[in-house]
């Protein structure tokens, strides 16, 4: 990596202005639109030409970058480009790329090609032309591109992208404009913009893309070095920090950078609120072989190990959370580097829990992201972690004595019963994110609940058959059925009266799990577990209906049959089917269950409990009581 010098990183995001006088005038013109908020400034040298129906060829001058929103399939025809850290060369197959308005926009940048010194210009031109021809780029387009060709440039083919998952997602009203620009009017001021729009992407301000700060660059450099070094052990990188500091984006960037060098990276998800590769509420371990070029809902994949915790935060049952983390971690084989993502809950007990996790997993590197000069969170130096007790683990108290009486070095011994009293050995890397609004709670682009819904929809999108163009509504699909007595049932997050449990289960989101125990039942009724198991979760489904007479659950799930047959336990947590799925059901007979327009939210008490966070007492207390 050092050889590459991480060009993505250090360079300021804006392209250096090097245009001539004529360009200056055009720039000013474009800037006037930008000021009006209508169109981001276009960059010089960007050439986009329609290559075919729904496809475009884009020529990027060396180091030129394009930050965009939208979605497309990307293929590099000549040179190399980099996308969120992942280098795409011309031998790579087409990559689906997703840059919705809800997330940090992707930036496509030309990389300096590793050119053979002997290669001459003509050969290079011929190679570029041949690549374009091979992908049926129209002749006219080829000519245009070649007119601006230089050996250091990069040529990419962008194709319109329409996958069953995205089709499914976009069919839900709240998400229907997910990939569209957040502008009031469609800007089509340059021919390039129009061409890009035809494949489904829109240029946007470079500020919307990933801003790599100096500290982030240094941390990444160090991590890549550690991961690619042969001699040391396999690194385990734990990433932590408060909410909205860019942990997820950092992880994606890191993984992509690692995938440039390594065939695969493992990823352990401990943030049950915002999961990367699974629906929410899970702790999981995934093997990543493909670059992450989009938000979670675009790359839902079956993890190597997954446990359904059943809540989006773990405050209610930290003990089970740790059990779950332990369980999932135990299947990590330490053969490839591991990236561990943690929760943004780093206050109070959350920090203590993080201590426990650090002690439990003993990572080799900790990346600590914070914005407020460590006010939110003390620096997690090995010494600090060594001394500080966690929620369930003890800190090393004696160490204090050691500091005081430095003379008695030989007297100091680790106390009996605490064999692992050695300070943890890891390298702490600080990262100060520098994007606007970093770390400001409540300033995230999208509400976390909506992101969770999107993950669930992304997961359910796998139910769409790949060869059909139209979206099949969920309720129209043929469900699986399984007898009450064949699968155990447990509601994780609350106590439900057993006689009424089907009211909770019907039309709900369930984890499809596998417990080692054999299902024992005295009747043909459902089997209710007396405690919440820590067990493998093979996927998720919707209980489409409960048939009381035949005693069957009907379940919709994308879990393949060969895994589904192993499922013997349904876990119900407080993660719900997105409202838009239930509300958006069309063409059904009669009333839609659980959907009403009679509920009046203007009545006091009709809403959920909201915690007041900033609460002040009146400054001058009166004599009277405050009852």
């Amino acid at each position, binding site marked *: 990596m050092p050889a590459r010098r991480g060009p993505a990183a250090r360079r300021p995001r804006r392209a250096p202005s090097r245009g001539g006088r004529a360009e200056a005038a055009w720039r000013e013109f474009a800037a006037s639109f930008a000021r009006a908020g209508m169109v981001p400034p276009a960059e010089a040298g960007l050439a986009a030409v329609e290559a075919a129906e729904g496809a475009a060829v884009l020529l990027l001058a060396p180091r030129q970058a394009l930050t965009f929103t939208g979605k497309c399939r990307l293929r590099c025809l000549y040179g190399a480009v980099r996308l969120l850290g992942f280098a795409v060369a011309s031998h790579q197959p087409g990559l689906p790329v997703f840059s919705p308005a809800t997330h940090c926009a992707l930036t496509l940048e030309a990389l300096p090609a590793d050119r053979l010194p002997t290669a001459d210009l003509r050969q290079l031109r011929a190679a570029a032309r041949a690549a374009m021809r091979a992908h049926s780029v129209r002749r006219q387009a080829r000519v245009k591109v070649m007119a601006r060709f230089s050996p250091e440039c990069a040529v990419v083919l962008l194709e319109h992208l329409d996958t069953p998952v995205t089709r499914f997602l976009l069919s839900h009203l709240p998400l229907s404009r997910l990939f569209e620009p957040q502008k009031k009017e469609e800007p089509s001021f340059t021919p390039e913009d129009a061409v890009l729009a035809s494949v489904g992407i829109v240029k946007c301000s470079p500020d919307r893309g990933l801003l790599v700060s100096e500290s982030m660059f240094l941390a990444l450099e160090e991590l890549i070095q550690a991961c690619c070094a042969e001699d040391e052990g396999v690194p385990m990188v734990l990433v932590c920090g408060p909410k909205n500091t860019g942990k997820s984006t950092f992880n994606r960037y890191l993984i992509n950078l690692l995938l440039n060098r390594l065939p695969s990276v493992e990823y352990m998800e401990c943030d049950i609120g915002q999961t990367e590769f699974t629906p929410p509420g899970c702790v999981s371990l995934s093997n990543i072989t493909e670059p992450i070029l989009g938000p979670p809902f675009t790359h839902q994949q079956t993890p190597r190990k997954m446990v359904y915790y059943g809540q989006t935060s773990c405050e209610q049952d930290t003990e089970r959370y740790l059990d779950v983390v332990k369980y999932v971690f135990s299947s990590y084989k330490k053969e490839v580097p591991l990236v561990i993502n943690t929760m943004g809950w780093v206050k109070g007990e959350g920090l203590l829990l993080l201590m426990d996790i650090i002690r439990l997993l003993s990572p080799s590197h900790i990346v600590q992201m914070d914005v407020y000069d460590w006010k939110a969170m003390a620096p997690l130096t090995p010494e600090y972690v060594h001394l500080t007790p966690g929620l369930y683990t003890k800190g090393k108290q004696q160490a204090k004595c050691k500091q005081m009486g430095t003379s008695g070095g030989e007297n100091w011994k680790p106390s009996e019963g605490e064999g692992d009293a050695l300070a943890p050995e890891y390298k702490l890397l600080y990262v100060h994110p520098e994007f606007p609004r970093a770390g400001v709670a409540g300033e995230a682009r999208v509400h976390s609940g909506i992101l969770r819904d999107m993950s669930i929809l992304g997961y359910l999108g796998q139910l769409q058959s790949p060869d059909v163009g139209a979206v099949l509504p969920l309720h129209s699909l043929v469900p699986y059925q399984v007898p009450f007595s064949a699968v155990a049932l447990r509601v994780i997050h609350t106590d439900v009266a057993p006689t009424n449990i089907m009211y909770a289960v019907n039309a709900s989101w369930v984890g499809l799990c596998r417990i080692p125990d054999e299902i*024992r039942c005295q*009747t043909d009724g459902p089997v209710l577990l007396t405690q919440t198991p820590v067990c493998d979760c093979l996927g998720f489904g919707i209980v489409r209906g*409960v048939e*009381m007479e035949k005693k069957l659950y009907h379940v919709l799930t994308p879990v393949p049959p060969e895994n589904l047959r192993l499922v013997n336990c349904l876990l119900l947590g407080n993660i719900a089917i997105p409202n838009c799925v239930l509300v*958006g059901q069309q063409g059904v*007979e009669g009333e839609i269950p*659980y959907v009403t*327009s009679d509920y009046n939210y203007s009545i006091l008490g009709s809403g959920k409990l909201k915690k007041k966070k900033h609460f002040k007492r*009146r400054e001058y207390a009166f004599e009277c009581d405050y009852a």
Partner: protein
Amino acid sequence: MAGCAELAWRRGRPSLSPARKRLKPLRTVVAWRGRAEWDQVMVGLYCGDSRLQQEALDRVSAWKSRYGPKMPLAVDCTAELIRCKVLDSSGRLKSHELILSYGLALVRFVNLITERKQKMVSIPLRQLAREVDIPIWVVDLRHELTHGKLPRLALCRKEKVRDVLLSYKTEQFRVMQTVQSVSKSRELWSDSSSEVDWILAQIKDLMQENRETVAEALLSDGFLIPKMDCLKMLNIKYEANKEVWQFRIPQTFYCFWQPLLTGLLSRSFTQILIEKMFMELKECSDSSELRPQFLISWISEMLTGIAKVNAGKKRQHCNKQVSMKELFLHKVPLQWIRLTDNCLEAPCWATPHLLQLILTIMRPRLPRSSRKNLLYLASVYTEGGGPLSSPGLSSDCSEQPIYTIESLQWRARQENQVKSQGQTAEKQDDVLDRDHGVEEVEEEEEEMVTETNPLEGLAHSGNMVAIAEKRAALQGSAWQITADEVRWKDFPLGKLPGQTDDPDGLMLDNYSMMSLLDQPVRDEWKSPNTKEGEELRFITMTTFSCIPNSSKVCAISILLAAPAAGKTPCHFYCFVISKLCRVEYSCDRRIVMDPE
């Protein structure tokens, strides 16, 4: 930028063509399958029967699972209160435990329900509570529970008494509604019914625990001291002019409460009630509202009643056109000296009259001179003159009123006027409610991909292959692909072919419990057979969807959610609710539960 994005999220598709907008009611996801389930739970929670309440609470536990952290506050709070009630009537908790349960439920209710109204700088709870019509005594109780001594159970139970009283009220109103006439209902009221007997038995039961609580509850707003809406319902015109009353309770109102009072007014309770009334009078003697007027009139009625019965007069003596039953059937010896003290401690414009009544009835009598002096002093104190020297009220009141045909006719006219006024007011309210109740949001006319695409048949055949493959892969497994030829697209999620809207459709009659080996044992569910009680923590009622007047919800949930130790026909409550709030979701089903 982010702001824009977020806004767009919330509102769905941003407006492209404002002209195509139209109003659509906001559709939301709730925890109940439909109206029937909602109705069932609401009726269950508010009926007095612990078993049915427990069943409703069980259903609410499933709602809580569906809602997760989004559980409506009102549902949660109501459920917690009702849960206490169910626990209370199960008789399994001792009083101290009950205090804690009731207390926490009450504190949570008051705090949480007012929480939303809090601003950045905290507003005193009293003020908030007033805004949402939570009775002040509830707020005081909360304060005492959190910052002071634990109150006696009696105070928590006050709610219980109020609840029973409320059921009495509802019963009387129901009777009135069935005959649609005030005068007829007076007759009906006077013939005790089994319903009333049952309620009476409940209150007597409560009185054994604490008479004072019962007396206090009777004198709290809405019972012996009516609220305006109650008077309106009884077609009683409220006259601010004290003279019109002539120390009598309006007949209809008297008849309304007479059966209950006659049942309750034992010797000791009469003493307590009159003493309490004087104490209340002392607190509010200056106010010009209903309260002092009714207190004075009730005291006067009771004393007159005692005078009659003590003098051995028969009922026939009161030769009114309308048969008015007496409050007392037997002689009631009271502690007259104490009452005299009480009377004098609550000086007001009516003191001379009340004092005179007491002095007349009391045995042994005070010496004549003492009586005279006391009366004189009372008059001087309250009127600024001797009882006979000043014209006006005090002299008027010493004369007994004489009813004539004319006065009755006059009253009837007044009543009719009130009635018609009331009706118009009601209609207007209805119109307002409707405007307010129907929440509509702007939502763009949205045609989702509904066109039944011609590909569907093709998709189906394509799917058939996939389905066959899946079926093969599931061979020998408990999991199967549903074989029946069902047009799934006709059935929304949560509904299967042949399923009805029966709210009991998903109830289980049997299930087995299974514990796991090698699993950490925590929060263990009790054995499958312990049905109610420990297994449920939650409960609720809610948010009557369409109630326009939000403030009333709180008042009602407090009044109704509290324990009613027994069985009262369900529809009474619903009736009250609909009367007070004109609920559109009202329950017109007559689910009369057999007392046994």
